[in-house]
């Protein structure tokens, strides 16, 4: 097994994401601070994702095309049905009052986002998920 030393841009990006997560964790929603830290994470992740995507496109153009990813239809349909059920129930709760009786996902997650450490972990996970979206498919 060989350990790969991460490049300095990768270390810088991870450091910036961690710093942004920590700063975001100490702020509260509906403040300028929250707007700025979230916007920084959003723009930074999209910029990094675009760089990764362009590099992959360049590499793909140089090498022969790989076979398309085959996904069994039932597998995709099961996840699509699950996602549709989540969205439908979320909308039902969103448009039904009061919120205390009909909690939405975000009102349930407010237990986590209300705590600084958990908020930092959740923010970092959100940045990671955003970066993953741009990886090779």
């Amino acid at each position, binding site marked *: 097994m060989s350990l790969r030393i991460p490049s300095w841009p990768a270390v810088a990006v991870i450091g910036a994401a961690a710093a942004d997560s920590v700063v975001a964790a100490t702020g509260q929603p509906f403040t300028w601070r929250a707007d700025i830290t*979230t916007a920084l*994470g959003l723009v930074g992740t999209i910029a990094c994702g675009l760089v990764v995507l362009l590099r992959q496109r360049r590499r793909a153009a140089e090498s022969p095309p790989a076979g398309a990813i085959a*996904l069994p239809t*039932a*597998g995709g349909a099961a996840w699509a049905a*699950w996602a549709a059920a989540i969205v439908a*129930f979320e909308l039902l709760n969103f448009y039904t009052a009061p919120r205390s009786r009909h909690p939405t996902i975000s009102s349930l997650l407010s237990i986590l*986002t209300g705590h600084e450490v958990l908020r930092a972990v959740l923010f970092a996970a*959100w940045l990671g998920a955003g970066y993953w979206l741009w990886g090779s498919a």
Partner: protein
Amino acid sequence: MRAVTLLLWAILLVAGVALEILGRRRLGELVPLDRALQRLRSVAIGRAALVLAWMWLGWHLFAR
């Protein structure tokens, strides 16, 4: 009513976890979530939809 709503959320959560476990065990044609999303990412419109959903989620949870 709150208890019923929470129970339904729990059922949906358990269903998602069950799908993931069964997908990882390759039961039938089920696949894990990352593989299902990979397919969606492979087309431009799917990737754009995922990025928009990700943007909305972050803004909704952390900013507004």
